[in-house]
């Protein structure tokens, strides 16, 4: 007969085994960026590699030709692909159990509530940590964030963009201009819509721009400003007695969704092309709960971790854009 604490161990592990898939879905849908990547089928699995290696795209093969009878097609494959490399990053959320709580929650239904409450809190931690990492610079521990993948290297002393020393996936963006994303410095908030249009057409000028997978990500203040700009242009359709003075559903810019995320910076709009952004994760080390370990010098208290292995990469920075220095 297992002890109560062993029963709780088992309940946590079994609940998590059943919940893992749902928690994964939840995590992927919890932030706009990952949600759009998921929709675009760009959340990919890689099992057990030393590091992440992925093809980068920066041109076409230019091998398509108009032909007539007997024409010969070029057999040389242009070097349009090169390889990017990056490291796996690991995120772990800790679940701590106190003996006193276990003792108080004795009984089947109390135990279920207790486990749910602890795991729910762990899931939320994971979501918020991931969401915040997406808008932060990578560190030795954290994944690549949008500031790494879609840079805004503004040198405010000289009022120029300075790409010196910028690197992404092992490629020097200072010398390899083809591996830079598009940038616009917004000098006047009144001209932000003009800059947005300018960015859109800059991206459109690229060969094969795949603009249908473009998503604009910003913070809530800029999204609110955008809605206020639209307010005068809303069409009121009175078909029944109900009213809504705000926009329903996500706002769009040229048909592309514009959404906010809590940790997004207040001075930037990211033009994220989800076709060329990928989230890699290792399914073998994904949402894995470790065994329960006793905490030294704390009678009966235990802890376990839920570990995820992932990183975010960009295969074509030129198709991404950032408008920065927005001051509303």
């Amino acid at each position, binding site marked *: 007969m297992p002890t109560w604490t062993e029963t709780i161990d088992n309940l946590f592990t079994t*609940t998590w085994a059943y*919940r893992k898939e*749902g928690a994964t879905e*939840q995590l992927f849908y919890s932030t706009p960026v990952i949600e759009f990547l998921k929709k675009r089928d760009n959340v990919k699995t890689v099992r057990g590699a030393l590091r992440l290696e992925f093809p980068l795209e920066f041109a076409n093969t230019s091998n398509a030709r108009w032909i007539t009878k007997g024409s010969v097609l070029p057999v040389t494959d242009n070097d349009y692909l090169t390889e990017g490399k990056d490291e796996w990053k690991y995120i772990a959320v800790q679940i701590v159990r106190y003996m006193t709580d276990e003792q108080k929650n004795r009984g089947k239904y109390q135990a279920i509530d207790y*486990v749910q409450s602890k795991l729910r809190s762990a899931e939320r931690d994971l979501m918020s940590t991931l969401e915040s990492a997406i808008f932060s610079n990578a560190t030795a521990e954290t994944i690549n964030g949008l500031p790494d993948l879609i840079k805004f290297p503004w040198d405010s002393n000289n009022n120029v963009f300075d790409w010196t020393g910028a690197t992404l996936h092992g490629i020097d963006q200072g010398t390899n201009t083809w591996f830079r994303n598009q940038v616009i410095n917004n000098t006047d908030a009144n001209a932000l819509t003009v800059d947005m249009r300018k960015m859109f057409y800059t991206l459109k000028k690229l060969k094969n721009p795949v603009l249908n997978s473009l998503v604009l990500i910003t913070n809530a203040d800029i999204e609110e400003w955008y809605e206020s700009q639209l307010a005068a242009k809303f069409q009121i359709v009175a078909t029944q007695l109900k009213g809504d003075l705000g926009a329903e559903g996500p706002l769009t810019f040229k048909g592309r969704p514009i959404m906010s995320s809590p940790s997004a910076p207040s001075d930037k709009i990211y033009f994220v092309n989800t076709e060329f952004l990928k989230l890699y994760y290792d399914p073998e080390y994904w949402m894995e709960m470790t065994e329960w370990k006793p905490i030294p010098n704390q009678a009966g208290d235990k802890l376990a971790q839920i570990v995820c292995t992932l990183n975010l990469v960009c295969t074509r920075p030129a198709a991404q854009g950032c408008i920065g220095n927005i001051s509303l």
Partner: protein
Amino acid sequence: MSEEVRNEEKVQATEEVNEQVNPLEVLVDKVESLSSKIEDLQAKGSEGEYLSLDDLQDLLSSVEDTKEEAEKVGEDETVRQLKALKAQLEQEIVNLKQQVLEMRILQEVEKCRAKYKDFDEYQKEMLELSGVYPNASVEDLYLLAKAKYGEKKSNNKVKERKEVSLDELRRMLKGEKPTGAVSTGNKAKTALSLAEAAAIAAEEIFKGG
């Protein structure tokens, strides 16, 4: 010999001389007119107008005749020009035949699509079969594909239906979806909510007491 007769002889002699010069001029004229006709046809084709196969074949036979004439006269340069024209025309004919074939296939596809509702489901299979039976019509390819792979596809559909009904059943057995779990945006039908997962786990762990 009267003056009149002499004049007549002069005219005849001049005509004879002219006759000796004329074949070359005629040849040059013919080549020029053929070249301009081909250019016209090419312009017509590149503007998207339909070229007539008969026109092209008439032109080809004219070029062939003119080439023979030039060979008789020994006009090497003209023969070379005509050979180039002939090659151009033959190419145009090949292109046109290809276009006609493509149009015919497209028409057949549209016809079959209208006739058979599941036509598009067999695209991949039809493509495979077209490699084996290159002369089969589109309709024959569809019927072949359906006969060969139809059973497999309908089995998949039955399986799909079965899975959906099992899923429904599972949900019914479990009762109403708990609202306490984190539910926003959970779009996976098969993924369990936290409350569902905890309930199933508890059933397993606390069974028998």
